[in-house]
């Protein structure tokens, strides 16, 4: 409910005065500035984080798999003498130190080791389906349940035996309140 339809203000239509309108506009501007600052700070923080080589090494290293067959994340592979992970880590460190972008590093690894080197499907091509389908299912499910609830809610109440009538409205609410009070809920 907005302030313009607040019943406590009476039936008279409330019209904002000019200074009041100005203060609303100021508030709007302030809010927009605040949002812009927030977005900018978030972007700066994100970019600051991403430019740190150690952080990038950890982040990208956790998006890759060791290809020795251990099925472990590259930076979690713990085999001393693993034929793959040491070399891969060195390559990753070199790429990060050179300042290669994340996607360039990923591409070079995929070219060298194949698509299974990435720990999760990419957001390109058919791989996108991996992410889209569960959320499509979620929204479809919510829609279906909304429909089910609506159908069940609109169904007429079942007929009762002679002489009885279903409780509805205020009478039902009265009994509900009473039950609530008696059980202290």
């Amino acid at each position, binding site marked *: 409910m907005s302030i313009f339809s607040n019943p406590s203000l009476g039936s008279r239509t409330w019209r904002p005065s000019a200074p009041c309108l100005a203060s609303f506009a100021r508030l709007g501007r302030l809010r927009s500035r605040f949002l812009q600052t927030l977005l900018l700070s978030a972007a700066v923080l994100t970019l600051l984080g991403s430019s740190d080589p150690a952080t990038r090494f950890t982040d990208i290293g956790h998006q890759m798999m060791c290809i020795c067959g251990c099925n472990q994340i590259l930076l979690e592979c713990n085999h001393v003498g693993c034929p793959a992970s040491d070399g891969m880590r060195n390559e990753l460190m070199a790429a990060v130190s050179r300042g290669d972008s994340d996607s360039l590093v990923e591409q070079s690894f995929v070219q060298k080791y194949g698509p299974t080197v990435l720990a999760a499907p990419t957001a390109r091509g058919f791989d996108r389906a991996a992410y889209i389908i569960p959320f499509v299912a979620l929204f479809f499910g919510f829609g279906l349940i909304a429909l*089910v609830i609506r159908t069940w809610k609109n169904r007429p109440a079942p007929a009762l035996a002679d002489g009885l009538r279903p409780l509805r409205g205020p009478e039902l609410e009265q009994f509900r309140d009473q039950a609530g009070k008696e059980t*202290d809920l």
Partner: protein
Amino acid sequence: MAQIGSFALLLALALSLYSFLAGIVALVFQNRPELQTANTGRGSSLANPSATDGSLGSMLRQGSERIGETARRAGIATFIAVLLASVILVICAFHDDFSIAYIFHHSNRDLPRPYKFAVLWSGQEGSLLFWSLLLAAYGFVLRLRYKTDPRLFAYASMVIAGVQIFFLLLLNFAAHPFALMQGNLPADGNGLNPLLQYPEMVIHPPMLYLGYVGFTVPFAFALGALIMKYPGEKWINITRRWTMVTWAFLTCGVFLGAHWAYSVLGWGGYWGWDPVENASLMPWLTGTAFLHSVMMQEKRGMLKMWNMWLVFATFWLAILGTFLTRSGIISSVHAFAQSSIGDWFAWFLVITLAVFVFFFFKNKSHLRTEHKLESLVSRESSFLFNNLLFVLLCFTVLWGTWFPKISELVQGNKVTVGAPFYNRVAIPVALLLLILTAVGPLLAWRKTSLESLKRNFMWPSIGAILVAIFLMIAPQSWGSAFGLKPWKDVSYFYSLMAITLSVLVTLTVASEFYRGGRVIAKHTGQGIFASMVQLTHRNTRRYGGYIVHFGVVVVIIGFAGAAFNQDKEQEMGYGDKMTIGPYTLICRSYTEDDAPNYGSQWAVLDVYKGGKQIDTMTPVRRFYKASQQTSTMPDIRSTLNEDLYIVFEGLNQDNGHPILKAHLNALVMWIWLGVWIILIGTALALIPNAPSPVRVPSAARLGTTQAEPVATGD
């Protein structure tokens, strides 16, 4: 011995076949219309076996009852035959009988005795025998308790015999555990996989299998009830208790597996989203959904068809998990060797699906009910959304597990679907589920007024928000989960959300106990704590369920800790230092040792915190002689705040210095604590309710009205 074992398995198959076929014959005859007429029209009854009127119908009825009884006894005898085969395999393992190929491949002379016992489930053939044994044991208990409802139990017994036949066919013709070695007998066996030589592996597989196999029982009751068009909801009461027990076993099995992975695999984590791990999670998710939705059927007669499908899906997913493990169709570090038994499982999955779908469509009119919902803000709607989210989580896990295969079919190349995928997709859904866990218990059946929801939800919400603010502003030095800045990383955001919602659930659960306890205290004059105990005893299922919810959020807090994990790898000579978080590790020594079964390398590290020595840790790496494989034994120092987890990764070949990896894993102990709470809650929910309800005087009714202490029921 091997011959006796083989004979026992053949005998078990014959008995199962008899139990199944005779069970069908008995039930078909009992369902014949002329017998039904004989029951109703001539005064005889199926429920009254002593009634004899000499008619053909009566004779047929008595004959079918006798056949039914022999089917039941054959089912019991199946258990004895499978038990005999299992005992023989274990005895052969203890006697190092390497003439049996299975013993040769999974044991050796120096294997410690407890692991020789565990040989039973350590390989493909043995684990199938163990599966069959557990199924026969469940069937044995079910057939002994048949008097609860003879007809329903006869149907369930028949379904179990059908499933049993499949496993015994596999054991006799595809994966024979008593197959003999060809040629000269080897002097020693290949030994047990080193990763399985850990105390938890003696109990983890039995627990997991008790869970997997146990879901056959609810499925058997459901299919039986569907075939016989069972009147009323009694079958669901019977099924629910079996499901709860099975669910507890599966929960225990899943988390024992996680603990084993954490303690043995040495990568510092407990869950890798491996297909085999996923296979255990999927039936757990649908089983949990069923335990919630079954209440809708009991209380309101709703969701009968849905519950049927949930029970079936849970059973089917348990078999699918076994198919994934055995067929090698999806690559996994856990998977058994690729073999032809995958085809057997694929056919079994198709047949069970076909049988269920056939009877579902044949008898679905029996399950039809007129659902009526009074309000969106009600317990019923919350269960609908709860079921949606559980099933969706299950679908996400299934989708992620199969996606590499689907991608291969569509694009021609496999992709990896690992932890980053599940973190992106499953965590948001799990957080939604956590919100429902907080709100659901506050909703009444039929309708809840928004005012009462607001009233009950306000203080827990304020409490949760305050905790979130506190976690953000408290200094990081206080512990792993303090000083949380959600804007720094999405994982911190998820952690903060998970912890905040966990607090919200905890506060709503606490408020439910408090309000219910206060009502009893007011009427009985007891103290609030005693009242809460009495409250729990009066509705064990509901309050046991709340304790399970509390256990779940404790586990979730443990999961949330993963965002703060750190690790460091370093080569450490004598006196070298490594610092991780608040800990400093100093290498005091490193050495080697030799035992009959394995040789080991280990390091001795002094652990300092705040300048004071607090512990000495000894991570070990073992080399198992029989299997020629290595295994790490991390040393873990657990506190409520964090685990210091040290792995001996190996030796630098140039200078002989050990290479050590230290992990600082936040809040992991909460996971194991939470599981204990879940199990306690489940055990409580299985205890029957105390008999006497509170009597509440009502001005609007004559006399007294019996009321549950809290209006919302289960």
